[in-house]
C-alpha cells in the first residue's frame, strides 16, 4: 500500500495536538511549526498529485480491512488536485495570519487551522460516505473555533447562527446516509454504486429520497440558493484570514456533489437519471444572480466578498450541473481559480478593514492605499472574469461547455449579465473606497483648521512586509494559473475523463471481488 495517501490527514492530525499540548504558551514556536507543517503538506500534496497524474486509482485500506468492510481512502486525479489546492491555499493564509497578528488575537489559531486542513484533506480523500460525514464534522468543529477566533459580540452572534445551521446540515446528512444504508446496505461509495445499479426499478423511491437529501446537504455546504443564508453573515463576521480559508469549504460541497453524482448516482443510473441536474441547475443560476445583486447592494467590503464567493459557487455549480466531461473539466479549472481569487479578495478586505473600517463609503485616505488598491484591482478583475486573468479563461470554458446544453440561452444570459453586474458592483466599491477617499482628503485640506501636515499613519500589521508578500503570492498564483492554463486544463480534462468512467474507480476499490 502507498502510505503517501494517508499522509495529508496524518500530518495535521499529529501536528495540531502537538501545537496545543506542547507549544501552547510559545506563539513563536507555534508559528514556525505551523508554517513548516503547511510547507510539508504542499510537498506531500505535490507527491500524491504526481502519483495520481498517471491515471492509476490507488486505494489505501485503513487498518488493512478490505473494502467494503473497512474504510478506504481513494487517491484519484480529482482528490489529488483538491488536496493540492488546499495545501497551496493554506500557505499564504497562514503567513498572512502571522504577519497581521490575527493568530495572536485569540488562542489556538494554529492548532485549529491544522485541524481544519485535516478535515478538508480527509473529505477529499475518503471513499466512504459515512467517513465523509466524519471528516465534514472534523472540518466544521475546527471552523467553529476559527470563526469565533478573537471574539466580539457580533462575531459570536454570527457564530451561533453558523453553528446552528451547520448542526442542522449534519442532522440532515445523517438522515440521508441512514436512508441510503437502509436501501443499499452499504456506505462505501464504490459498493454503493454497484448496489444502486443492481436495484430493481420499482424499488427506488426510497433511494431517490436519499439521493435528494444528500444533494440538499451538499448544497448547504456549497451555499446554493435557497440554502445560502448562513454564508454572508458568517464569512463577513469571521476573521478575514479564516474567511479566506473557508473559500475551500464551499468547494468541499461542490466536490462532494461531483463525486457522489458521477460515481454513486451517475448519469447512467436509471433511478436518479436527470434528477440532480434538473434541481441543481436552476438553483445554481439563481445563486449566481442573487450573489451578483448582493455584491451591488452591500455596504460592507467583507459582505461584498462573501457575495463574490456565492457568485463563484453559482458559476461553478452551473458547470457541474451539466454533468458532461467538458463542463466538468471547465468546472475543475474554475475551482482552482475561484478559490484563489476569493481568498485573495478576503485578504485584501482585511488590509482595508484594518486601516479604515469596512464600510463602502469615502473616508480619509489610508496608509499604503496605492498597493492595496492595485491588489484589489487584480482580485476584482479575477473575480469578475475579465481578461487577462484566469477568471476570464474559466468563464470562457464554462460558457463553451454550456453551448450544447438544452438551456444554453438561460445559462449564457445569467453568466454574462451576472458578470456585468459583478463588474459594476466591484467598480463601485473600488472607486468609493480608493478614489473618493482622495476627494475626502481634499475637502479636509480646504478646511483651514486642518492645514497642519500629518505624518503618514503606520501600517496596523506588526509585519506589513510579510502580509503584502502573502497577498501578492496569492495574486501571483492567479497569474500562474492563467499562464499555465494549458497544462492545467489538460490535467482537468483527464480528471473529468476519469470521473465519467466510474468502472475503474469501482474496480480499484473493490479489487478482485468484482
Amino acid at each position, binding site marked *: 500500500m502507498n502510505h503517501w495517501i494517508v499522509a495529508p490527514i496524518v500530518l495535521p492530525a499529529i501536528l495540531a495536538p502537538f501545537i496545543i499540548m506542547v507549544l501552547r504558551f510559545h506563539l513563536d514556536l507555534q508559528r514556525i511549526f505551523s508554517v513548516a507543517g503547511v510547507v510539508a503538506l504542499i510537498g506531500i500534496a505535490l507527491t500524491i498529485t504526481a502519483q495520481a497524474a498517471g491515471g492509476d486509482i490507488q486505494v489505501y485500506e485503513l487498518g488493512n480491512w478490505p473494502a467494503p468492510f473497512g474504510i478506504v481512502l481513494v487517491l484519484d486525479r480529482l482528490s489529488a488536485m483538491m488536496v493540492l489546492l488546499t495545501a497551496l491555499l493554506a500557505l499564504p493564509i497562514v503567513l498572512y495570519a502571522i504577519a497581521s497578528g490575527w493568530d495572536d488575537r485569540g488562542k489556538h489559531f494554529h492548532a485549529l487551522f491544522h485541524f481544519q486542513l485535516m478535515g478538508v484533506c480527509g473529505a477529499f480523500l475518503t471513499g466512504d460516505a459515512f467517513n465523509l460525514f466524519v471528516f465534514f464534522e472534523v472540518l466544521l468543529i475546527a471552523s467553529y473555533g476559527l470563526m469565533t477566533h478573537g471574539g*466580539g*459580540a457580533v462575531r459570536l452572534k454570527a457564530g451561533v447562527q453558523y453553528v446552528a445551521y451547520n*448542526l*442542522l446540515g449534519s442532522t440532515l446528512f*445523517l438522515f440521508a446516509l*441512514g*436512508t441510503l444504508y437502509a436501501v443499499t446496505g452499504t456506505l462505501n461509495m464504490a459498493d454503493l454504486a454497484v448496489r444502486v445499479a443492481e436495484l430493481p426499478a420499482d424499488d427506488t423511491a426510497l433511494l431517490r429520497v436519499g439521493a435528494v437529501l444528500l444533494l440538499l446537504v451538499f448544497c448547504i455546504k456549497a451555499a446554493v440558493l435557497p440554502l445560502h443564508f448562513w454564508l454572508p453573515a458568517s464569512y463577513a463576521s469571521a476573521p478575514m484570514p479564516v474567511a479566506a480559508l473557508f473559500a475551500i469549504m464551499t468547494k468541499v460541497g461542490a466536490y462532494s456533489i461531483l463525486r457522489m453524482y458521477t460515481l454513486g448516482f451517475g448519469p447512467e443510473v436509471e433511478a436518479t437519471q436527470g434528477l440532480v441536474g434538473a434541481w441543481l441547475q436552476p438553483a445554481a443560476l439563481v445563486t449566481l444572480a442573487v450573489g451578483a445583486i448582493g455584491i451591488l447592494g452591500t455596504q460592507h467590503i*467583507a459582505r461584498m466578498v462573501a457575495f463574490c464567493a456565492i457568485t463563484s459557487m453559482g458559476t461553478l455549480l452551473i458547470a457541474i450541473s451539466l454533468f458532461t466531461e467538458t463542463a466538468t473539466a471547465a468546472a475543475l479549472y474554475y475551482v482552482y481559480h475561484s478559490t484563489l481569487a476569493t481568498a485573495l479578495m478576503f485578504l485584501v478586505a482585511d488590509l482595508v478593514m484594518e486601516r479604515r473600517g469596512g464600510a463602502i463609503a469615502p473616508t480619509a485616505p489610508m496608509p499604503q492605499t496605492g498597493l492595496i488598491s492595485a491588489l484589489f484591482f487584480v482580485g476584482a478583475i479575477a473575480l469578475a472574469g475579465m481578461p487577462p486573468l484566469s477568471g476570464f479563461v474559466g468563464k470562457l470554458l464554462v460558457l463553451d461547455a454550456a453551448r450544447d446544453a438544452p438551456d444554453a440561452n438561460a445559462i449564457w444570459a445569467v453568466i454574462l449579465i451576472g458578470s456585468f453586474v459583478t463588474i459594476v458592483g466591484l467598480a463601485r466599491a473600488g472607486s468609493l473606497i480608493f478614489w473618493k477617499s482622495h476627494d475626502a482628503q481634499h475637502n479636509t485640506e480646504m478646511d483651514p483648521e486642518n492645514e497642519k501636515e500629518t505624518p503618514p499613519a503606520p501600517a496596523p500589521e506588526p509585519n506589513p512586509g510579510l502580509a503584502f508578500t502573502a497577498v501578492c503570492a496569492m495574486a501571483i498564483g492567479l497569474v500562474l494559473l492563467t499562464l499555465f492554463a494549458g497544462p492545467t486544463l489538460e490535467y482537468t480534462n483527464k480528471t473529468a475523463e476519469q470521473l465519467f468512467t466510474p468502472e475503474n474507480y469501482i474496480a480499484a476499490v473493490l479489487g478482485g471481488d468484482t
Partner: protein
Amino acid sequence: MEALVASAVGVMTAAGIFLILRRRTFPVILGLSLLTYAVNVFLFATGRLALDAPAVLNKYKEVPYTDPLPQALVLTAIVISFGMTAVIVMIALSAYLSSKDDHIDMNAHDSVDAPGEDA
C-alpha cells in the same frame, strides 16, 4: 413496534423543527438536540428492527442477529452530536454574555456595525 419507532422519530423531528424556528438561542439548542435524538433513533432503525437479537454472528448455530453497523454509526453520531451541542452551548453563552441579548437573529444594528471588528 415499527409504528412506535416511526412515530417517535416523526414526533421528535417535528418538535425539533418547531423549536429551531424560535427566536431565542435556548429553544433552538433544545430543538437541535431533539433532532439529533430523532436521527439517532432513525439510524438505529436503518438496520431493520429486531428483538432480542445479538449484534454478532454465531458460527455454531443459526440464530437471529441484528445488523451491527448502524449501532456503530449511532455511536459515532451520538458522540459527535454530544460534542457539538456542548460547543454551541458555549458559543451561545459567550455571545449572550458579550451582547446581553440571546436572540438568535442579528438585529439591524449588528449587521451595519462593521462586522469583523473587535468589540
